[in-house]
């Protein structure tokens, strides 16, 4: 019996090679999409699973609520928070604080200064780091690493700085910048295996926390709660109730901050989040940690399933169409004694064969396009899904479901044919399932149209953001980090000053400015205590900012609404407030009617000497913030405005000058506009993937349409013949055959438009600056769908219309 079924199925596949290719190809592509997406999703969900204590580690964040307003979430805490929690509750087994190198540090091999590089992946951590997290050491003793005066680095960093030499016992110098240069000298006493890609902690160098605490400000315990620059992780005892822990932590936090909070009418809420969930949680953005997006992950899961569904519908559709050709077989089988369940079984097993071949094809396609997907999506996927045991639980189930979905309806329909009806006369013809078929086509195209509208909207939005007027001019601005390695006895400010004076004498160099941060790199500091000097502490608001020099405003094309910075001295007499500039948003937030009114006012952070027209310091994802610019001559970043000619020569001239003035410092340059574009990397990636999946979905839907058009025209050959004999023109027949499909697509447009409008509106809400949804986006997508469908259908229609009616009308 089995042999008979498989034989029939196999021969049927070969009998209609075009149907079979459409069927298997479509399903294969759908399955390949699914596999790739699930591989990606599995990768995203695998983050931080490799830690032995993963289930007991929690990230500590806290929200600040002032005057019963909106809570502002802080993912970082002060340095006192970790120790306080560990000391005051028995639930905490260990804690570790991580202080990223905000910005970059210069690391050099102490014995071979040639090996000097700019490094960003530097963490300052507590000595409990290796007990809490699981990062295997290649060299070194887990209990001795991170002792004061030591340093740990990754295998590849060890190779970079020490070559094949054993790094243990050698030392490195780390020079970072925390409001001024900060120097650390450490002896390497451990090397860890390179951090896996599915770790949210991404680092190459670990410096003991004791090193950071040499800085004088850490002697003052009051800084331990207010300065939120430490990321705190705790390992709780296994049976701890997380809700109870949050309550206790909140209580401890409030107790320590009581005095301070009462004055400003602030409440704090401490929240612990499971370590494994932090990566995908968009609300917990951690500086210099890898960040995923649960929204994107769920989006791709849905897209994957939709693509698969479209492919399945194709299969069902073509099976129904093909079923009519097999009605006679069903009739015969029934007449010779087949029972209904036997027929159902037969057709389901045929589906199983097709699905099996498609699955094999799907795996092949997925393997084949993996590298393309990797470069498109900017990920490093490898196929390991099939090695995991979970996959083998889910996959057979999925396989079974696919077979059932694709096979059940055609099987039921076919097996219900009555032999009496289908065996009558010479040719068994049977009409049926056409409603279902039309429904499936409408569904497929509705989805395709939603995706088309999505593509248009996503592209428009990304384009809009990228070309939005930032209120700043980032063109031809090059930045280099200022020197961090300063020889003893040299004043950094003076050294930079001399450098910039020499630099400005180079002909293509325009203005030169220094600042604490640069556009696209975030602000240098944030505060919750911004207010008018005269105002009550309960009126404090949040603000961010950076230090700048006097040339900065001009170089970046920022516009002053009020005040000026010409001839301003950086030095403010003792006891007088420092000089600051604020943006319009800040002026309004502080309660000034007009931005101008803020001029000359004394604020918590200094005296306002200028008000700037609003600008976008960060990407269009973020709304404008209250912004403070300090005037300061000593800043880590140097920005240089360049002319367009002789760029390579100019750069090498700058490099030569840099090396001459700041010996030992690595020269690393970047262009601000390019760096700013990096902020849209994820959006571009999203848009690209969107296009890929939309094209695939439409391609599969078209395959189905093609199969169906082939089938219908074949079925209507006789009718077409009669019409031609009666005088119908070719174009008339093409129109007749196409009309039916256009009607279905129009219905799909009607269904898809409101869905697309709703979904894309929701999506746009993620952006602070959004485009408007316009009617033409929907009409455009609908027209595109109609054109694509017509092109698909018309080839068949024209073929049928050109056929000689004599052939089709020959008697049977």
């Amino acid at each position, binding site marked *: *019996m089995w042999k*008979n079924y498989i*034989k*029939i199925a196999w*021969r*049927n596949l070969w*009998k209609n090679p075009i149907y079979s290719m459409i069927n298997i190809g479509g399903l294969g592509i759908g399955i390949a999409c699914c596999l790739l997406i699930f591989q990606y999703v599995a990768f995203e969900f695998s983050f931080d699973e490799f830690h032995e204590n993963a289930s007991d580690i929690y990230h500590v964040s806290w929200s600040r609520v002032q005057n019963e307003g909106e809570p502002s979430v802080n993912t970082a805490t002060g340095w006192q928070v970790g120790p306080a929690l560990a000391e005051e509750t028995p639930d905490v087994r260990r804690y570790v604080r991580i202080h990223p190198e905000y910005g970059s540090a210069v690391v050099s091999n102490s014995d071979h200064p040639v090996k000097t590089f700019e490094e960003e992946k530097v963490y300052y951590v507590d000595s409990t780091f290796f007990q809490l997290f699981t990062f295997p050491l290649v060299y070194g003793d887990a209990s001795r690493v991170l002792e004061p005066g030591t340093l740990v680095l990754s295998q590849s960093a060890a190779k970079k700085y020490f070559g094949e030499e054993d790094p243990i016992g050698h030392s490195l110098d780390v020079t970072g910048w925390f409001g001024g240069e900060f120097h650390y000298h450490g002896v390497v006493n451990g090397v860890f295996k390179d951090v896996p890609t599915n770790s949210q902690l991404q680092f190459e160098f670990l410096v003991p926390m004791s090193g950071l605490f040499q800085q004088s400000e850490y002697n003052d315990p009051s800084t331990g709660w207010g300065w939120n620059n430490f990321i705190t992780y705790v390992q709780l005892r296994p049976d701890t109730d997380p809700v109870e822990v949050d309550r206790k932590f909140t209580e401890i936090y409030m107790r320590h901050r009581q005095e301070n909070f009462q004055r400003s009418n602030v409440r704090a809420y401490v929240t612990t989040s499971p370590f494994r969930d932090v990566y995908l949680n968009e609300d917990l953005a951690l500086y210099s940690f890898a960040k995923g997006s649960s929204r994107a992950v769920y989006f791709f899961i849905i897209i994957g399933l939709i693509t698969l569904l479209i492919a399945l519908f194709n299969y069902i559709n073509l099976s129904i169409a093909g079923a009519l050709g097999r009605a*006679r*077989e069903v*009739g*015969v*089988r*029934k*007449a*010779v*004694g*087949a*029972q209904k369940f*036997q027929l159902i079984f037969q057709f389901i097993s045929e589906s199983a064969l097709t699905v099996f071949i498609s699955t094999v094809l799907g795996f092949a396609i997925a393997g084949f396009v993996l590298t393309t997907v990797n470069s498109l999506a900017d990920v490093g996927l490898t196929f390991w899904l099939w090695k995991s045991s979970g996959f083998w639980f889910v996959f057979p189930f999925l396989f079974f479901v696919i077979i059932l979905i694709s096979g059940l309806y055609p099987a039921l329909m076919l097996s219900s044919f*009555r*032999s*009496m009806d289908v*065996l*009558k*006369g*010479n*040719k*068994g013809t049977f009409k049926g399932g056409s409603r279902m078929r039309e429904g499936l086509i409408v569904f497929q195209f509705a989805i395709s149209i939603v995706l088309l509208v999505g593509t248009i909207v996503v592209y428009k939005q990304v384009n809009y953001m990228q070309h939005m007027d930032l209120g700043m001019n980032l063109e031809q601005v090059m930045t280099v980090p200022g020197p961090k390695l300063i020889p003893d006895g040299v004043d950094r400010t003076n050294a930079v000053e001399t450098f910039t004076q020499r630099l400005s004498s180079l002909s293509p160099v325009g203005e030169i400015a220094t600042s604490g941060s640069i556009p696209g790199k975030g602000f240098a500091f944030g505060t919750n205590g911004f207010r008018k000097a005269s105002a009550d502490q309960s009126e404090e608001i949040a603000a961010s900012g950076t230090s700048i020099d006097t040339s900065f405003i001009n170089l970046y094309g920022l516009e002053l609404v009020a005040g000026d910075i010409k001839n301003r001295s950086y030095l403010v007499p003792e006891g007088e407030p420092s000089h600051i500039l604020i943006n319009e948003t800040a002026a309004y937030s502080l309660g000034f009617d007009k931005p101008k009114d803020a001029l000359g006012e004394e604020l918590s952070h200094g005296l306002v000497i200028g008000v700037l027209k609003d600008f976008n310091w960060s990407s269009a994802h973020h709304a404008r913030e209250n912004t403070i610019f300090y005037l300061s001559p000593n800043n880590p970043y140097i920005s240089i405005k360049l002319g367009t000619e002789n760029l390579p020569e100019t750069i090498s001239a700058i490099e030569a000058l840099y090396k001459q003035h700041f010996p030992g410092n690595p020269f690393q340059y970047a262009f601000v506009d390019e760096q700013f574009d990096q902020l849209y990397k994820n959006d571009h990636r999203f848009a690209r993937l969107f296009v890929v999946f939309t094209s695939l979905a439409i391609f599969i839907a078209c395959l189905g349409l093609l199969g169906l058009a082939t089938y219908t025209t074949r079925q209507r050959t006789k009718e077409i013949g009669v019409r031609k004999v009666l005088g119908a023109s070719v174009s008339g027949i093409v129109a007749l055959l196409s009309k039916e499909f256009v009607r279905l697509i129009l219905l799909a447009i009607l269904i898809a438009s409101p869905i697309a409008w709703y979904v894309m509106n929701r999506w746009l809400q993620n952006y602070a600056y959004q485009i408007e949804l316009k009617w033409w986006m929907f009409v455009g997508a609908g027209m595109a769908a109609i054109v694509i469908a017509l092109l698909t259908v018309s080839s068949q229609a024209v073929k049928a219309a050109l056929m000689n009616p004599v052939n089709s009308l020959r008697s049977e």
Partner: protein
Amino acid sequence: MIKLSNIDKYVDSKFQRVFILKGIDLEIEQGEFVTLMGPSGAGKSTLLNIIGLLDDDYVGDYEFEGEMVNKMKEKQRHALHKKEFGNIFQAYHLIDELTVYENIETPLLYRSVSSSERKSIVAELLDRFNMVAKKDLFPAQLSGGQQQLVGIARAIAGKPRVLLADEPTGNLHSNQAKQIMEVFAELNREGTTIIQATHAEENAAYGNRLLEIVDGKIEEDKILIK
């Protein structure tokens, strides 16, 4: 063996009831070779379908070997059909995707006959109809007469007691038709009850009973003496 009493078959259209069969009373004994004759649309095929248990949408009583068929459950009726009846069609209705051998084998598969037994039954039938050399060909590669021979072989593979043939020679040349009718006569001599519907006068001569059907009624029922 077969006893039909007062069988009516009709379709209701909007304004009237159209009878396809009306008041059919018929008894057929085992071993008879009955020919149904009559113009197109007289109801021959319908009567054959009712006898062959392919159509259960009628009024009246149908007894098979003393059992009331019209009171049977679907499952019993299906089992009875499988056991006792073989169908032969005008358009042969072979399964195009199966070879001659596989086509003949199909009814045996639905009767759960063991593999070795299937082989011997099919081999015997191929031998009997001189088709051993053609066993691996597909229906499209055969002439009409050969296809109908396969149709007959398939119909008798399950060893049914009643063979129902609806215009078995309708698509064949006279020579081929003669050959088919001779096979029928031989099967009948071996004891198979045969009921055929046909337009051709000469086919009736092979049988021993002739029923003239006109407008859904049996007009004439005569015994043929050879």
